[in-house]
């Protein structure tokens, strides 16, 4: 399992960076534009899927192991849960960072505007958590399915 030909490998590496960047953009701007954690995470997972197909499972597992992906997934989910729990001062899921002036805490004027990146409180942070979780979980699923198709134990 050494993957596909050199041409495919090179082209996929060229594409890898833009796809990853786009995925990160979609995750980061989830509170301003359509998109968010799940969509961005899926885009990132497509980049990883491209890598998996082009380079084969052996190379993929050398860089991102099963245990590592599963641990990253848990960390993403846990940070989402922790962010929700931190709002318990008022209510579960309360947005304690919004309009606080600190991190992501700028208040937004009423009406249409160009979008302020540094706003929306815990929502962008939760988007990041979900993005991490979805990207790692989807690539884990793809890896396991790829392995099972090749007949390597699950």
């Amino acid at each position, binding site marked *: 399992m050494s993957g596909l030909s050199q041409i495919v490998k090179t082209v996929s590496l060229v594409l890898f960076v833009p796809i990853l960047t786009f995925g990160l953009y979609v995750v980061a701007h989830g509170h*301003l*534009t*359509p998109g968010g954690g*799940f969509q961005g995470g899926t885009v990132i997972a497509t980049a990883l899927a491209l890598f998996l197909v082009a380079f084969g499972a052996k190379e993929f597992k050398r860089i991102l192991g099963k245990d590592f992906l599963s641990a990253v997934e848990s960390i993403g989910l846990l940070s989402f849960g922790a962010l929700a729990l931190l709002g318990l001062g008022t209510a579960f899921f309360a947005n304690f960072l919004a309009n606080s002036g600190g991190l992501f805490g700028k208040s937004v004027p009423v*009406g*249409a*505007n*160009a*979008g302020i990146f540094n706003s929306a409180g815990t929502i962008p942070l939760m988007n990041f958590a979900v993005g991490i979780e979805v990207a790692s979980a989807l690539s884990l*699923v793809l890896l*396991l*399915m790829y392995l*099972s*198709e090749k007949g390597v134990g*699950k």
Partner: protein
Amino acid sequence: MIEALMQNLPFVVSALLFVIGLYALLFKSNLIKMAIGLSIMGSAVNIFLIALGYKENSIAPIFTNAPINGSINAAKMAMPIPQALTLTSIVISLAVTALMLSLAVVVYRHCGSLNASKAWRLKK
């Protein structure tokens, strides 16, 4: 009659797709085809939800760079709830499809067949 049909085309299409998916799920014995039928049913429900949220001459419910004609009012924006529902249902149907396909893989490894009538061993 035709006019009414055309006006409600998304709903008709989604109902048709739902029935097609249900047919595949009930009458096909190949496990992969059953998974396909299930995804078709999921898409039918998604189309239905999206069609529910459609409002003529409305704009997307995003404040960033929204077109300003006087003051922006919420009445012009489409309600984002059906879209949020669709998104959640897409996420869930992704998980269901992945689970169904991986179970099909395991079934194939055990029985060497994807045909439900051959692979199923539990009696009725």
